[in-house]
């Protein structure tokens, strides 16, 4: 558990980067610090491993004051990932990953074994082991960065915009893998980003900071989207927050309709509907066809693939999006194995949303206050 208690960083000349920050990053959870540039989020992160020293206030790690710990020991006990990975260009991937274990005095064999294990864990092929960082793509470098941070199995990870410098597709992939990894590892993570979508996707709790290093709001993502404390947070959280908040609402039991399905190679004779759903042998949805415009057998390239597919056990956002994006206006719902269970229409999803409870406000006089 990382606890900020009244932490302030004031630079000579009077600039205040972080102003009286009090915050608890609970064990095993991802706490995201988010805010515009100049909000002191990176400064806050760097005060945890004392790359930057607070002017006043204390930061404790599992109850121990970090100011009283030896800096190198403190840092070796925390994984650290930065934007461009900050890999050592003169060391191979394997050596990069083994950095902290070597600093801790592990022997070569144990370090290498651990590094290989981590490469597998973060999804890096063995062939990269002996390559240098310049031979890797940005996404691969970032994986090495994560592996390096995890090498000595530290309980705490500090991550400073680790996925910002890669293209959106790779970023999403890295985020998904990061969440999967965190499910396995359960680290205590402090994560800095300027991207509110990333914060909402990754955070168990989100601390929104405003310029000048003042904590504006600390809440879990759903609460933040539903109850921003003020205009600043509301603006920062973004316009379509109502829609995005649906990501955190589980789908209730929807009135699913059975759907007439067809297979590739079948003809559409005798199908009366405007749209028919095509599935594969395992009943996995492939796309829609318009029977009256199809003559002969259905071929793969005839399918309309615009509709998204939602899991029945997923959030409401998925179900609504499936309905909205479907060419037939019927949203495709599948079970966890991806098999079709039925379709649903947008108004039915909206009914479900109407009936679902909004996150409870703890303090009606101050809805943005953190729920306790």
């Amino acid at each position, binding site marked *: 558990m990382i606890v900020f208690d009244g932490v302030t960083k004031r630079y000579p000349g009077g600039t205040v980067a972080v102003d009286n920050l009090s915050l608890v990053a609970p064990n095993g959870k991802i706490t995201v610090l988010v805010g515009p540039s100049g909000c002191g989020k990176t400064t806050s992160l760097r005060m945890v491993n004392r*790359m930057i020293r607070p002017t006043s206030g204390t930061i404790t790690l599992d109850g121990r004051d970090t100011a009283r710990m030896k800096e190198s020991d*403190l840092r*070796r006990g925390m994984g650290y990932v*930065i934007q461009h990975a*900050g890999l050592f260009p*003169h060391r191979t991937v394997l050596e990069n990953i083994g950095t902290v274990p070597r*600093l801790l005095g592990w022997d070569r064999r144990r370090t290498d074994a651990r590094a290989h294990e981590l490469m597998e864990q973060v999804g890096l092929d063995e062939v990269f082991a002996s390559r240098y960082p310049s*031979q890797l793509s940005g996404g691969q470098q970032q994986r090495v960065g994560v592996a*390096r941070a995890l090498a000595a199995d530290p309980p705490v990870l*500090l991550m400073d915009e680790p996925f910002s410098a890669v293209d959106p597709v790779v970023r999403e992939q890295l985020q998904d893998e990061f969440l999967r990894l965190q499910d396995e590892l359960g680290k205590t993570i402090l994560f800095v980003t300027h991207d509110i979508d990333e914060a909402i996707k990754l955070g168990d709790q989100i601390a929104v900071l405003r310029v000048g290093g003042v904590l504006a709001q600390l809440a879990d993502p759903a609460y933040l989207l539903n109850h921003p404390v003020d205009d600043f947070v509301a603006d920062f959280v973004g316009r379509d927050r109502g829609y995005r908040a649906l990501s955190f609402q589980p789908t209730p039991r929807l009135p699913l309709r059975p759907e007439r399905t067809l297979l590739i190679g079948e003809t559409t004779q005798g199908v009366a509907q405007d749209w028919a759903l095509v599935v594969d042998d395992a009943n996995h949805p492939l796309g829609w066809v318009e029977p009256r415009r199809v003559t002969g057998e259905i071929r793969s390239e005839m399918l309309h693939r615009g509709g998204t597919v939602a899991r029945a056990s997923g959030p409401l956002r998925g179900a609504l999006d499936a309905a909205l994006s479907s060419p037939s206006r019927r949203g495709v719902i599948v079970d966890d194995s991806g098999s079709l269970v039925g379709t649903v229409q947008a108004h039915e999803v909206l009914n479900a949303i109407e009936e679902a409870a909004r996150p409870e406000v703890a303090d009606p006089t101050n809805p943005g206050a953190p729920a306790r």
Partner: protein
Amino acid sequence: MTWFLDHVQDVLDLAVQHVYLAGLPLVIGLLLALPLGWLARRYPGLYTPFTAGFGLLYTIPSLALFILLPGILGTRILDRSNVLVAMTVYTVALLVRTVADALGAVPDDVKQAATAMGFTRFRRFFAVELPLAVPVIAAGMRVAAVSNVSIVSVAAVIGIPQLGLLFTDGFARSFYDPIVVGLAACFVLALAFDLVILAVARLLTPWQRAGGAS
């Protein structure tokens, strides 16, 4: 050519002396320039005085230095250590700025990452900064090596034996063969120094030859 063939052994002996007088200061000079260059980076206030100040030493005429040093060091005028010290001064003069700039060119995020990983300042220098500074330092070393090979020959004027003796000898006798041989030998030596430095730098930087992202 006949003169050279008659004096091969003499020329080789002088060349060995030349290598010693130019090469040893190159190594000592580098060892001195490393901490000085590091200090110039560590304390930004020192950068300008250090690089400008040590750079100025290079402007001291070599002959003057060869003659003045015995008075300062208390050595005899014919002592070879005068030349070694003088050449070390020139090497340091050239390399302090090189080392400071080489260390300065190490990417900041790499240094930050090293610190965050728990490297102590001392360990970070040897494990991260110095290896990454090798290409730039090597470039400076090549300049210093050529400069040393050239300047050492002036020591012939005060009678320290090395290839420069061929010039004073040829000049005294108005006989050009030794001068031509001396020039060629200096050229070959400078080239040899250059190749050795290149080879060492290559050995130390396998990562530089790794191709880009595939």
